[in-house]
C-alpha cells in the first residue's frame, strides 16, 4: 500500500506537481494517465524518491518514506522494482547480467541460485534464448520485458512502470499489459503504471488517476472513465476521432 499526501514539486521555480494526493492498494494495477508533459514521470520518480518532493508525505505501508534517511531509503529500495520509460537496461551488461545485477548487489546467493532466479524471471516475461545478448541487440518490446524481469528479480512488494508500452505495436502492448497485471495479482504487488494508452486503461486499470497540468484532476475505476463528466478528461480519453465515434454510438 502506498499513500501520498499533498505532494508539491517544482524545478527551479516551475511547478510540476501541485497538491497531489494518491492512494494505491496492493494486488491492484493502478494507472496514472495524462498528456505528455503533465508530470507523470515526475510523480513516479517522486514516489520512489528519485526526486525529492518540496513538501508532502509519502507512506509505504506504515513507513513514512519521505522522512527516511538515505541509508534507510536504500534498504527500502530493494523492495521496489521499477521499469523506466526507456527500459534503462545497463548497456555494459548482457540480458542475463542485467537481471542478475540486483541479485549480485543485494543477495548472498550462489551463482547457481542467481542463475536459476534469472532464468525464472526471464521465462516469466517470455524471453527465451536471449540471455547472452546485449540490450542494443534487442527490440524495444524485448528491452521492456527484460526491464520488467530485472524489476521483479528481488521479488519486490512495489512495482513502478513508466510507460511500459509506449512505442510498441498494439499486440505487444497488450502482451506487456497483461504480463504486468498477472504479476501484480500473482505476487500481490502494489503496482503503479504510467501510461497514455487508453487501451491499457480499459484492459488493466483497476484504479485510474488522471493528472492534468500537475494536478490530480480525476480518479476512479476504468469502468467509470467513459461516463465521467470532466471536460479535460473527456478531451484526453476521446482524443481520436475513432473514440469520439464510439462514444456517439454508445450514447445512441
Amino acid at each position: 500500500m502506498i499513500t501520498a499526501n499533498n505532494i508539491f514539486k517544482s524545478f527551479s521555480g516551475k511547478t510540476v506537481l501541485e497538491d497531489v494526493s494518491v492512494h494505491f492498494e496492493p494486488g491492484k494495477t493502478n494507472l496514472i494517465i495524462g498528456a505528455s508533459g503533465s508530470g507523470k514521470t515526475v510523480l513516479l520518480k517522486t514516489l520512489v524518491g528519485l526526486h525529492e518532493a518540496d513538501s508532502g508525505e509519502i507512506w509505504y505501508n506504515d513507513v513514512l518514506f519521505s522522512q527516511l534517511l538515505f541509508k534507510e531509503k536504500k534498504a527500502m529500495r530493494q523492495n521496489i522494482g521499477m521499469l523506466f520509460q526507456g527500459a534503462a537496461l545497463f548497456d555494459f551488461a548482457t540480458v542475463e547480467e542485467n537481471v542478475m545485477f540486483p541479485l549480485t548487489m543485494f543477495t548472498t546467493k550462489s551463482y547457481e541460485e542467481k542463475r536459476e532466479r534469472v532464468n525464472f524471471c526471464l521465462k516469466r516475461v517470455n524471453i527465451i534464448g536471449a540471455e547472452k545478448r546485449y540490450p542494443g541487440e534487442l527490440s524495444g518490446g524485448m528491452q521492456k520485458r527484460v526491464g520488467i524481469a530485472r524489476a521483479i528479480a528481488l521479488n519486490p512488494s512495489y512495482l513502478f512502470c513508466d510507460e511500459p508500452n509506449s512505442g510498441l505495436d498494439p499486440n505487444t502492448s497488450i502482451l506487456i499489459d497483461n504480463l504486468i497485471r498477472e504479476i501484480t495479482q500473482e505476487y500481490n504487488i502494489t503496482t503503479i503504471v504510467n501510461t497514455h494508452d487508453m487501451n491499457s486503461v480499459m484492459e488493466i486499470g483497476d484504479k485510474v488517476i488522471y493528472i492534468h497540468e500537475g494536478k490530480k484532476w480525476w480518479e476512479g475505476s476504468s469502468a467509470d472513465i467513459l461516463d465521467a463528466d470532466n471536460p479535460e478528461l473527456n478531451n484526453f480519453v476521446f482524443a481520436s476521432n475513432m473514440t469520439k465515434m464510439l462514444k456517439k454510438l454508445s450514447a445512441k
Partner: protein
Amino acid sequence: MRSFFELFGRYFLLMRKVFTRPDRMSVFWRQLIFETEKLGLSSIAIVAIISIFIGGVIALQSSFNIVSPLIPKMYVGFMTRETMVLEFSSTMIALILAGKIGSNIASEIGSMRITEQIDAMEMMGVNSANYLILPKIIAATVFNPLLMLLSFVVGLMGGWLIVALTGIITISQYFDGLQMEFNNFYITYSMIKMAVFSFIITSVSAFFGYYAFGGSLHVGRSSTRAIVVCCVAILIFNLVLTQLLL
C-alpha cells in the same frame, strides 16, 4: 564566478559519494581489473608510439642546437633524458590521455545518465557514483604512473634509435649523456605528477558525465567541456606540483 564555485561544490559532493565503501567488494575488484584494462593497458600502444617519436625528435633537435664546440656532444643524451622525465612523459602524456580516456569516461557516464541507467541503479539502492566512478579513478591513478615510466624508457630508446641511424653522435656518447648527473627524484616527481593528473582526468570527466542532462548533443558537449577543464587543471597543477616538489 558564482557558477564556478557552484560547480566546484558539486564536484566535491560527488567525490564524497564516490569515496565510500563499495556495496560489494568482490564486484568492486572485478570492476577495477576491467577499468585498468580499459583505461590503462589499452593506452600502452599510443603512449609508446608517441614517446618513441618524441624521444627521437628531441635527440635530433638538441644535436642541431649544440653548435658551440665547447659543449660536449653527449649533452644530446642528457637533454633527451631531462626533457622526457621532467615534462613530456608526465604532463604531455597526461594531456594526451585527457583526450583519450577523458572523453571516453565523460561520454560513457553521460549516456548512462540520459538513458536513465544511473537512475535505475540508484533506484535499486546502489550508490551509482561509487559503483561507476571509483574503479575508474583508482585504476587510472594507480596504473598510469607506470605509463609514465614506459614513456620515459621508450623515449630514451627513440633517441638511441635516431643516434644509431643518423650517427649525429656516437652511441656511447649518447649513453654517457643519459647517465650524466641523474637525479633519481625526478622519476618519483614525474610519477607523482602522473598520479595527480590521472586523478584529475578521471574524476573531472566522470563529474561532467554524471551531471549531463538532455540529449546526446549535451553528452557530446559535456565531454568536450570535460576535456578542456581537465587540460587546464593539468597545466595549473603542473605548475603547483613543480613548485612544491622540486
